[in-house]
Structure formats: C-alpha cells, structure tokens
C-alpha cells in the first residue's frame, strides 16, 4: 500500500474518549474537536512549509543554472562579434588536431534510494517499527557479511545489478579477445582473399554476341543453384528487365534510395502476373527456362540500377521463397554502386533471412560467392548479434531503474574506474579482498559508468581493434 507523503495528524477530530466526570458532554465534544482542529492546522502549516521549501530549493537550483547560462550567452555574444571569417582555421592540422566535440549527457541515476526519500516519508519510516537488531550477530559470522542484510537489504537489487554488469563487461571483453585472436590466426594462416572486383565486362562480352546467346553461362549456375524461386521469377522478368536495365543504365546509382520507394509498388502487380505464368512454364520445362532463370542472379546487377526493376524481382522473390531474397540480396551488393539501390528493395526481412541462406548461396553462382554476404549482412548482423547480448543488459538497466544502494556517492571514481578494474583483473588470483575494496570505493556513481560501459560494449562489436590490442597482454 503506498504511503501518504504528508499525513495531517489528528485524523479524526471528534473521536476522542470523553472523560467520565463531565456534565455537558456536547460542549466537551465541541471543545475537543476545536482543539484537534488547531492541531490539524499546526501539522498542515508544517507540511505547507515543507512543500514550499522543496519547491524553493528546486527553483533556486534553476535560478543558479539560468544565471550561469546567461553569463555564458553574454560571453558567447562577445566572442561571436569578434569572430572574423577570414581568420578561421583552414589548416588540416587545425581541424584534425582539435578534440572532437562530445556533448556531456548526464544520466539520472540513484533516483529512488533511501537518501532521496522526501523528509515526510522518512519521518513516517521512523514512526514504523525498526527491523530487529540482527546486526549484533554479525560479529559471529565467518564471511564478514552483515547479518541484517539477510533479513532486509535495501541495496540488494542494486548490488545484484552492479555485479551482473561487471560480469557482463568481463565476459564481453574476453569474447572479444578471443575473436581478435581467432581473426589474427586466420589471417596469418591463409592469405587474404580480397573481394573480386565486379565488372560488367563479363556480362557485356556475353551479350555482345546477341542476347539470345546469354544462355550458356546460366546453365552452369542452374545446376548448382536449384533455387525454385529464382528459377520461376527469372523468366518473366528477363525480357522486360533487360530492356529496362539497358534503357536506364544511365540511372544515377548514387541517387538516394527513398525516391524509388513509392515507385516500387506499382510495378510488382503486373510483373507478378506475368511472372506467375512464367513460373509455371518454367517449372514445367526445366531445361530451357533454366537458362534464363539462373542467369537471373547475373541479371540482377544491371536490373538493380533501375529502381522499378529492383522492386519487381525483389517483391516476387519475397512471395515465393526466402532464399531468393538472399540470392537477390547478395549479388547486387558486391558492385559498390548497387549498394544504394539494393537496400531499399530488400529491407531488413530479407537481410535477416540472408543469414541462414548464405550457406546454400555460395555453393552456386560464380561471381557472387561468400565475399558478398559479409558486406550487406554486415550492417544488419552487428545489430542482430548485439541484440542478443543487449536484451539482458538493457533489461537490467531499464528494470533496475529503482536501485536502493548505500548512500556513498563517489565523485572521483570515473577516471580511476578502468584502471582499478584492470588492476582488479590482475589481482584476481592474488588477492580478492583488494578488488572488493576497490569496488566498494567506486560506490554507486558506478551506475552511470556501468550503463555506459554496456553501451560501449554493444558498439564495440563494430570497432574495437585499437582498444583490444592491449588486451593481449592481460590474457590469462
């Protein structure tokens, strides 16, 4: 049951036993009620003073902030008038040597702790029965913990969360060290296979003899691919898309993706219709249509240039199979200038499905082999992978928004934290106690630091080369 913040004291003014030796009881009751009313007024005025005091303190803080802001604005004003556009730093050195601007984001922390209780509620707590004095027994404990903590501990959940965060940071750092090691080993063992540069030469050479003779190469792909979706859809689109692609070859690949968006929807329905028929035909006669079908992935690169074409193949792919979207996804990616048009057509859903299908995909198709899968699924998987470790920490962060720790905010812990934790790692085998003490010293400013660390870890999956180069020295 929630506690009332300010309880005006004599709740019932008339419920007071009347002394027995009174003659005029009605007057007695009246007088008692009036006395209680006066007591109520007294407690009311006390609480009013409390309310206005809290508001006054807050308003005073804001007044201080406003005045400092005003001063800063004045100084800026003066500075800006002194600015001379000709004097601006143009040297590269000046631009690169400057520290990048980072706005200081202050996070609210330690909101619902014992010390932050409003005074009236603290008074109410003092009215309540105190917990039993179990701390007198802590002298007899072997493990040095406070005995009262086993009965009631207001900082329990916060400590639990803190431990979990520290553990998570250690685990993630270890994982990354291992990843780094594995990658380095792989790199050392085999020579780097740089991505093959996708050129159109191949296609144009095949086409120069006449479009009808484009068939032969697709036969090679057909046997290895065996993707029904691509088989069916290839046929319907080849003629249209080839024309469209050749017509729109001048289409600017660098143009932003959004404009193609609305255009994508109208083409699909008619294309669906003809592709549907083509699909049936294709499946009935595997050999001849198989040629254009498997040629289709090859055709995808030129088609992807024209936005309506990209939409139609992608939409049909979606309707039939999940592998085809991945098949569609991977080929357009390698040629760098397709990246702009490819992403809008197959947004996240096919990219997600791209993760299981890539194994079958590389089996077929010469030019679009494994190297393509890394680039486009590149951006999706880091959020995909990091989403897995993220739910627990984010759940921990959001759920434990109401921690109740001991009242010891430490302000100087930030710079010492990393060093202290590192030393903590080294000390793990030697002395656990020292590590514990250091952790206690961090106090509970750690909350902000911990939540930031988790955020840093999640982003670390993308770029942690320099940071973890040092970690090799610490490995156990």
């Amino acid at each position, binding site marked *: 049951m929630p506690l009332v913040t300010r309880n005006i004291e004599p709740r019932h*003014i008339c419920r007071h036993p009347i002394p027995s030796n009174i003659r005029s009881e009605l*007057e007695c009751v*009246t007088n008692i009620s009036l006395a209680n009313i006066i007591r109520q007024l007294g407690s009311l005025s006390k*609480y009013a003073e409390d309310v206005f005091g809290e508001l006054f303190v807050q308003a005073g803080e804001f007044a201080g*902030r406003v005045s400092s802001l005003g001063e800063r604005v004045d100084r800026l004003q003066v500075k800006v008038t002194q600015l001379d556009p000709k004097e601006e730093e143009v040297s590269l050195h000046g631009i690169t040597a*400057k520290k990048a601007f980072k706005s200081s984001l202050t996070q609210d922390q330690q909101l619902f702790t014992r010390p932050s209780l409003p005074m009236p509620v603290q008074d109410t707590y003092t009215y309540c029965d105190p917990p039993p004095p179990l701390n007198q027994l802590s002298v007899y404990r072997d493990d040095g913990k406070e005995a009262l903590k086993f009965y009631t501990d207001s900082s329990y959940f916060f400590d639990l969360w803190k431990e979990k965060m520290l553990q998570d940071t250690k685990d993630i750092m270890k994982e990354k060290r291992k990843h780094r090691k594995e990658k380095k080993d792989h790199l050392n063992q085999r020579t780097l296979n740089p991505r093959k540069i996708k050129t159109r030469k191949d296609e144009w050479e095949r086409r120069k003899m006449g479009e009808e003779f484009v068939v032969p190469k697709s036969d090679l792909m057909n046997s290895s691919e065996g993707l029904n979706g691509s088989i069916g859809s290839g046929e319907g689109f080849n003629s249209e898309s080839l024309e469209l692609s050749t017509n729109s070859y001048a289409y600017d690949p660098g143009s932003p993706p959004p404009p193609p968006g609305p255009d994508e929807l109208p083409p699909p329905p008619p294309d669906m219709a003809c592709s549907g028929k083509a699909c049936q035909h294709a499946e009935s006669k595997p050999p001849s249509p198989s040629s254009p079908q498997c040629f289709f992935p090859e055709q995808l690169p030129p088609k992807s240039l024209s936005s309506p074409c990209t939409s139609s193949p992608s939409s049909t792919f979606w309707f039939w199979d999940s592998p085809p979207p991945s098949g569609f996804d991977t080929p357009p990616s390698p040629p760098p200038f397709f990246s702009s048009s490819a992403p809008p057509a197959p947004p996240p859903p096919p990219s997600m499905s791209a993760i299981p299908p890539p194994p079958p995909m590389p089996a077929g198709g010469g030019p679009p082999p494994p190297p393509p899968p890394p680039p486009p699924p590149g951006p999706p998987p880091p959020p995909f992978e990091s989403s897995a470790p993220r739910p627990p920490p984010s759940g921990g962060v959001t759920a434990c928004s109401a921690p109740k720790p001991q009242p010891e905010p430490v302000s100087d812990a930030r710079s010492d934290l990393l060093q202290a934790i590192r030393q903590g790692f080294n000390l793990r085998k030697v002395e656990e106690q020292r590590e514990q003490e250091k952790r206690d010293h961090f106090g509970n400013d750690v909350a902000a630091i911990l939540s930031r660390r988790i955020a840093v870890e999640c982003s670390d999956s993308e770029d942690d080369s320099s940071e973890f180069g040092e970690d090799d020295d610490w490995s156990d």
Partner: protein
Amino acid sequence: MAGQEDQVQREIHQDWANREYIEVITSSIKKIADFLNSFDMSCRSRLAKINEKLTALERRIEYIEARVTKGETLT
C-alpha cells in the same frame, strides 16, 4: 420539565451551531490541503519543463562554444 426541555433544546441548538462552525473550519482545512497539493503538482510540472528547457539550452550553448572557440581554452 419544560424548563429542562428548554435547556436541552438550547443545548442542542448550541451544539448544532458549534458543529456547523467546526464543519466550516474543517472544510476550509480540506480546501487548503487540496490547494497545497495542486500547487505542489503544478509547480513541479512547471519546474520540470524549465529543467528540460534549461538542459536543452545548456547543450546548445556547449555546442556553440565548441564551434566558436578556435583551440583556445574556454574561459
């Protein structure tokens, strides 16, 4: 007997008057309490809005200061 009844009646009347008086006072106390609560709430909401605006302004000023300073230390 009638005198006593008069007396009782007078007492009862007086009691009713007293009770009305007490009722007026208690209802005013309740109004004061309501006023305090609503004043507190509205003040807190306004102060929170001011807080938001202040933090937004502070961030903007930080940014502008960073843009304007050419490598010199911020005074």
